[in-house]
């Protein structure tokens, strides 16, 4: 569709994009002013395409779905996929595919329809959850220190390695926490928790804007 989009279709896509409001959009300025470049920065990555998958990864349908997503993770913490489309482990038969917004069918992609086709009539489900969660990116040398104020998991790099994603609690709300690189974390709170978690993280980041007290 993207290649052959008529002007009317392009206008429709633009209208869809213009009408959207991301869950933490109203905090964008606060995120900018609350970030401490080089130490810890917080940004929202809005509108990522997300698809909830339920399928037995050892079944035929699981293999077909895996061929679309670039593999299905086998155990807690695993993330599969290369490049922009990644699949996070939620449970033994439950996964979440995260992709750029352009992968969504309404914006010219084919992620949801490809997955639906791959699953076919077999047991399982493919659900478009793009509006369910938003994405925060917390990065910088003190990103782990911010998370450790609330996360009960061991976030030390010897345990929580880059390329690992877990479902856990931050500030008493359920989130997915994905460590995308050594100093970068992507946090997926539900949309209704985005305001709370955004403000919570801003508050936790505040001390790093001041000189360290000896």
């Amino acid at each position, binding site marked *: 569709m993207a290649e052959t989009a008529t002007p009317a279709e392009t206008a429709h896509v633009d209208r869809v994009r213009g009408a959207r409001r991301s869950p933490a959009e109203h905090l964008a300025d606060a995120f900018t002013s609350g970030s401490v470049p080089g130490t810890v920065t917080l940004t929202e990555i809005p509108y990522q395409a997300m698809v909830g998958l339920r399928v037995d990864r050892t079944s035929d349908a699981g293999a077909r779905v895996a061929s679309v997503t670039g593999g299905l993770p086998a*155990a*807690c913490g695993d993330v599969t996929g290369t490049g922009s489309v990644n699949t996070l482990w*939620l449970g*033994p038969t439950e996964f979440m595919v995260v992709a750029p917004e352009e992968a969504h069918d309404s914006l010219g992609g084919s992620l949801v329809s490809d997955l639906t086709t791959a699953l076919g009539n077999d047991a399982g489900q493919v659900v478009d959850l793009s509006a369910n969660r938003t994405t925060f990116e917390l990065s910088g040398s003190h990103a782990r220190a911010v998370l450790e104020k609330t996360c*009960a*998991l061991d976030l030390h790099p010897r345990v929580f390695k880059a390329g690992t994603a*877990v*479902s856990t609690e931050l500030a008493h709300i*359920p989130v997915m926490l994905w460590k995308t690189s050594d100093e970068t974390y992507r946090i997926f709170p539900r949309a209704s928790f985005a305001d709370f978690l955004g403000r919570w993280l801003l508050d936790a980041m505040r001390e790093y804007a001041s000189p360290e007290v000896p």
Partner: protein
Amino acid sequence: MLLISCPNCGPRDETEFHYGGQAHVAYPESPNDLTDREWAEYLFYRENTKGTFAERWVHSTGCRQWFNMLRDTVTYEIHSIYGMGQPRPELQASAASAGASKSDPTQPGEFTQSGDFGQASAPGLAPGATAPTATTPISSEGV
């Protein structure tokens, strides 16, 4: 705060879990044959064990899977974590005596209940005493 080792996700805080009540309460084999009292006892009556207790938990913030746990209700010590459908594991004597396990642990897959609603099972009066038990005509398959 309990630190519970989810079979899928490893050790996590208790706040990530939800409690599912007593484990191994089997669905009656022929529920239509039960009297109202037996049905009510199946639905609502549970052991109030002081000591080692088999119970169900779900990792609701993580993998959303159910599992069974053998926990001491006095010391909060977690003796064993095992999957759904598996029988209650036998405890070593040392582990069983670690807590105040005075009351008879329910046998695996067996649903016992008080024979009447009388004082024999009144909580607080005789914590060590086991109420008269009667096995109801129900499945012996653990859940």
